[in-house]
């Protein structure tokens, strides 16, 4: 009972804190820093969600931009194409007021996450047969298919993309609230998975799939679930990013983006949620900090990446975590030893 109450309080505190922070930051912060901050948030969601697939479950997916794109385009399609079709019949969907904007954003999020999750299911299925390099190629292929499809679908603007998406997430100065709400959701979700019994089965798939199978772990289910959850979160990142940028085009979701997200996971340390978060921040902020270098900027950036990987091949954090005390009540000390 006490635990439940603590939980409710924790959630409330997070919500109110985020809301107040969001209001404060939007008024006080320089727009450029704000933009970088939001971008950090979006990429933290992407890195943490890919870490679920690559780091925790031990699959090797390098097509995360594909799920990102599905979320962004489906979400934007709702606000730009489908919502205007149904708004006449259902007037409560009208945008422009705060609650209308929030409602539409929630619908876009649900649609974006569902479709990205379904795409994750479709890609997760071949992962039953493919391992390592082969799976990597399949996921990369998926991301390319999405990229080329988006270039070819005229109703979403083809190569020019969708422009003039309403900035739903900025309505009521809530941009930071929405993005960091999903940052927290993805971090807490990862953490809970890692520390739960179910999560141990995920880790067992990473450590030794055959042994896990022999111990009765449903490896198929584990892998597909990881893909579905990871890609649904990437879809949410896409919806938020699309409604922040106000314009999306296929270029944003090219292979470079997939590689960038994979780099974040590897650089932070595969399997470490903290690592993914820190690496996402580093890889987004670093190119901005290096802007004073002008033309040599991307060279220095790449050199720094190489140096980081050479000095810490296991990633910045390896598999360590910070701020992840045991979630559960203290276990009786004897348990597990007496037997």
């Amino acid at each position, binding site marked *: 009972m006490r635990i439940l109450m603590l939980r409710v309080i924790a959630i409330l505190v*997070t919500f109110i804190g985020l809301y107040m922070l969001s209001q404060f930051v939007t008024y006080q912060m320089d*727009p450029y820093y704000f933009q970088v901050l939001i971008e950090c948030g979006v990429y933290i969601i992407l890195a943490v969600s890919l870490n679920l697939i690559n780091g925790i479950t031990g699959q090797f997916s390098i097509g995360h931009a594909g799920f990102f794109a599905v979320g962004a385009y489906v979400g934007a399609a709702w606000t730009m194409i489908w919502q205007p079709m149904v708004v006449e019949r259902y007037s409560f969907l009208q945008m422009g007021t705060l609650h209308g904007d929030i409602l539409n954003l929630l619908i876009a999020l649900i649609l974006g996450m569902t479709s990205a999750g379904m795409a994750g299911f479709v890609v997760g299925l071949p992962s039953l047969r493919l391992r390592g390099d082969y799976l990597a190629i399949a996921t990369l292929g998926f991301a390319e298919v999405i990229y080329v499809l988006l270039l*070819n679908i005229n109703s979403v603007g083809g190569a*020019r993309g969708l422009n003039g998406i309403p900035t739903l997430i900025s309505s009521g100065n809530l941009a930071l609230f929405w993005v*960091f709400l999903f940052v*927290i959701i993805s971090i807490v979700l990862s953490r809970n998975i890692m520390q739960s019994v179910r999560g141990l089965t995920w880790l067992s798939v990473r450590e030794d799939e055959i042994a896990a199978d022999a111990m009765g772990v449903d490896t198929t289910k584990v892998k597909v679930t990881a893909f579905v959850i990871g890609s649904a979160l990437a879809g949410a990142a896409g919806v938020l990013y699309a409604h922040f940028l106000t*314009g999306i085009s296929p*270029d944003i979701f090219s292979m470079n983006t997939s590689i960038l997200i994979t780099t974040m996971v590897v650089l932070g340390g595969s399997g470490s949620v903290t690592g993914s978060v820190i690496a996402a921040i580093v890889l987004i902020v670093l190119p901005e900090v290096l802007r004073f270098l002008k033309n040599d900027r*991307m060279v220095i950036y790449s050199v720094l990446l190489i140096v980081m990987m050479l000095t810490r091949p296991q990633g910045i954090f390896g598999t360590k975590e910070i701020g992840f005390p045991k*979630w559960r009540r203290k276990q009786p000390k004897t348990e597990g030893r007496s037997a």
Partner: protein
Amino acid sequence: MKGTYMLATGILAVSLVLCGYGCRSHGVKIGGPGGLQEIPVGDFSSLTGDTATFGTSTHNGLALAIEQANAAGGVKNLPIKLYTEDDQSMPDVARTVVTKLITEDHVIAVVGEVASTRSLAAAPICQQYKIPMITPASTNPAVTQKGDYIFRTCFTDDFQAAVMAHFAHDQGYKRVAVFKDIRNDYSIGIAKIFEAEFTKLGGTITGEQTYQEGDTDFKAQLNTLKGQNPDAVLIPGYYSEVGTIARQAREIGLNVPLLGCDGWDSPKLIQAAGNALNGCYFSDHYFSKDIKDPAMQKFFADYKAKYGYTPDALAALGFDAGNLLVDALKRAKSLTPSDLRDALATTKDFPGITGKITIDANRNARKAAIIMKIVGEKKVLYKVYTPEEIDQ
């Protein structure tokens, strides 16, 4: 439990630190000529990434123009300072760097982008902060429709298409077929306007076929077009496919002239086509070494002296955008973005090297286009069309 608290506090702390770092002067600060030491002008270009050559060219041209203006004493006795940012050929990065230029460097004008997707990403930001933006080379009509602070110093795809329609008419072609890239906005847009204009001038569109970027076999479509017996075929695509299309057209015996637009302008076109494009025409920006204008020749010499290689059309467009901006700064009542906007909007007959530029009511440049003829394996200047000739 503690974890959630710690997470929330952690995020709070990080954000506050970031915020403290970022909380600087709010909004755009602009002083009068007395308060300013220099005139800050922003430039965002694709200096790295997929289209790095485009961005480098326009940036070089722009930098040359600013350098020459400063050497001649600057504007209102102040030097112009150019803040350049690389957008890595990515639309979302373009958005970030333009925000940075406006809110950090406090520029009073932004010059940028060749690719229309990146100009479209940046335009709403400039409009939001009411900072004039000049795109030197985005030809997509939608760019300047983003708001009254967005200008363009090159012609639009619509104009280019109209030029080709008039040219086809003037050449005496009665029946023209169209072969367009279905995946390319640029190609589709030009085909649409061309068809409308050419029909209006009394011509007939015999038929339309499509291809996709990356295709290598075009013979089926070309055979269909050949059966329609056209006087010429318009192919408003990029050089990458046009060379192959031309060779295959000649192979199947489709020997009529092929017509194109500025997407054909690349040395690689002739490499791919060989002799197959002999006697074909394409419209381009008013820029060629054959133009014996002293200003054009001086630009060629200056550019080569500074950068060590011959400029392309995009460099000239960047150079013109820079000069036009300098001219508007000189004419502006004061050095505020809104006065600069008004000065830009009233630009009339500005003598750019790529033609006389007049900014029209839609903030697009009205300027001449040229028709290049391909003779053997060389491109030669064939004809010039001014906006007045197209209006008639």
